């Protein structure tokens, strides 16, 4: 094809993902070592996860339960029988020189996940999701006398390798999508939704470092090969050269890496060159992807059945294990049950912690007040401070107390938000202490009544104006009362009290 012909081609981007998520269990997948990474290297290991001779793996029931929950959430089928395989490759992060994973009978097959992107609802197919063990973590280091941290470096500049097996054996779920994504923005929206669902299931902790790792396949095809319903023939996909981008560890990283990769491939195609089928490494700092030396092909992994692990027959667990209400269902229920707007309901169901907290507050007070305080005030102030709901999770009772102060009319909503909530977040004090310190308690009825009487007595001109029919004079008197009470009285109430006094 000439460069000119190439330039005129309309291209479509095709992306598929392999998402690795760490499952939130107490212990590793094949041994009783804790999954708390710990600061000190090699302090959570045993003969099994160090791959010492003779050690035997025994599967963690909780990891299987988590996998079944994920299967239910993505509407996958759990096959009658599922087995484990050894994937052989030599790298120091694998103490056994093989990784125990699943091959031809993964625990979850043929699922899907719906998410919304730019206002449209999209559904992406999930080919499979399987259990496997996480490798250990590697540091590349240079010789020298300084502290280790100052000598860790990139793989190309290293003199030697240091390995920590604390992570080795942490249960992972690898979720493999169909090549259903058409642009990097969709990938980001999907990952956000996936993480939300996994957190709702209680099987995943997004705040844990390295808990989400993504490999993405990207290829370009002729736009005319995409059918009207968005499907693409298998043969077209097979024929397209694709790159696999590794080392992506965040939603934003996925979008950046794939946007870079799509435009890199487009430039090649448009200048009449071919895209090499290869593995590329995402460099988060530079926002680009770099070709890696060729790795093993599938057949080189010499997969074979892990004879130390008997087969699993857990398809009936799908009926036995309950999963919590998922974000979409909960959002719809919030709209109908609490009469919230779609927008408010979406905000309130964005994480399980927020949704649970909202429901607790709504039950004690009322839904409108709860929605305002959780969705608008709390999330707004947290967002402004780059804080997450998990940062204040252990202070929910204090925040509820603040809502109670407003609900009981003990402080004004304005003071509650602009002073109390902000100081709670900035200084860590409890609401009552702040109300006392700042003197925000609404002045009691008697004191307001006295201030009203004093304002009338001290301002005969304004009273005369009001009695002559100048309704604006009342505002002057309200101002006087507010001044006397230090702003803690309720202006509406003061207005009524004044009128009652003057009209009476």
């Amino acid at each position, binding site marked *: 094809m000439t460069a000119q012909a190439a330039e005129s081609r309309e291209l479509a981007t095709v992306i598929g993902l392999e998402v690795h998520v760490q499952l939130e269990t107490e212990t590793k997948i094949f041994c009783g070592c804790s999954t708390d990474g710990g600061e000190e290297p*090699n*302090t959570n290991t045993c*003969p099994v996860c*160090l791959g010492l001779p003779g050690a035997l793996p025994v*599967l*963690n029931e909780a*990891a299987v339960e988590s996998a079944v929950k994920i299967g239910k959430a993505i509407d996958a089928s759990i096959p009658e029988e599922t087995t484990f395989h050894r994937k052989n490759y030599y790298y120091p992060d694998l103490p056994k020189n093989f990784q125990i994973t699943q091959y031809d009978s993964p625990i979850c097959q043929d699922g899907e996940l719906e998410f919304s992107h730019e206002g449209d609802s999209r559904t992406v197919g999930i080919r499979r999701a399987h259990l496997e063990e996480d490798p250990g973590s590697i540091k590349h280091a240079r010789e020298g006398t300084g502290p280790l941290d100052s000598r860790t470096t990139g793989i190309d500049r290293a*003199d030697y390798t240091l*390995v920590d097996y604390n992570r080795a054996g942490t249960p992972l779920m690898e979720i493999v999508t169909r090549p259903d994504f058409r642009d990097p923005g969709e990938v980001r929206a999907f990952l956000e939704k996936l993480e939300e669902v996994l957190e709702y299931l209680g099987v995943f902790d997004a705040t844990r470092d390295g808990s989400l790792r993504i490999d993405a396949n990207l290829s370009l095809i002729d736009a005319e090969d995409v059918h009207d319903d968005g499907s693409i023939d298998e043969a077209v996909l097979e024929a397209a050269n694709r790159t696999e981008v590794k080392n992506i560890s965040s939603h934003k990283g996925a979008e950046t890496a794939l946007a870079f990769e799509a435009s890199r491939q487009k430039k090649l195609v448009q200048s009449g060159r071919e895209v090499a089928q290869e593995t590329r490494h995402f460099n988060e700092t530079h926002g680009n992807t770099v070709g890696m030396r060729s790795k093993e092909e599938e057949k080189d992994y010499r997969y074979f059945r892990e004879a130390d692990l008997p087969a699993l027959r857990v398809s009936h667990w799908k009926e036995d294990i309950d999963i919590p209400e998922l974000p979409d269902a909960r959002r719809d229920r919030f709209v109908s049950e609490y009469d919230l707007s779609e927008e408010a309901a979406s905000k309130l169901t964005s994480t399980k912690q927020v949704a649970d907290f909202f429901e607790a507050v709504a039950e004690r007070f009322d839904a409108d007040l709860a929605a305002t305080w959780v969705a608008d005030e709390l999330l707004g102030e947290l967002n402004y401070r780059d804080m997450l709901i998990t940062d204040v999770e252990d202070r929910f009772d204090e925040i509820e107390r603040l809502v109670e102060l407003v609900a009981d009319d003990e402080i004004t909503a304005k003071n509650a938000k602009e002073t109390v909530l902000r100081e709670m977040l900035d200084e860590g004090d409890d609401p009552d202490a702040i109300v006392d310190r700042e003197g925000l308690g609404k002045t009691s009825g008697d004191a307001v009544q006295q201030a009203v009487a004093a304002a009338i007595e001290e301002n005969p001109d304004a009273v005369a104006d009001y009695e002559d029919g100048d309704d604006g004079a009342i505002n002057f008197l309200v101002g006087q009362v507010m001044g006397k009470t230090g702003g803690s009285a309720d202006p509406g109430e003061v207005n009524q009290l004044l009128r009652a006094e003057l009209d009476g």
Partner: protein
Amino acid sequence: MSESVVDPDEVRHVADLARVDLDDDEVERFTEQFADILSYFETLDEVPEVEREAELTNVMRPDETHEGLSQDEALENAPDSEAGHFKGPKVS
């Protein structure tokens, strides 16, 4: 099984996967030895078929932590270590 089952390129490939450096003499020697080893498996053809024992299924353990090894114990067999890590050659 004839000796042509394994050729020197295959030996080089396997050595490469195992990150083992072989010189030409070794490649030649291992080519023969690989073929020998594979031929031993022919012996299995002579084993009479037996009924397979019923396989175990669903062997699992509860999610409870067990005391593992201390850092010193974990590193005891390591030829080299540094700052609590296993230490090895650089990798590519």
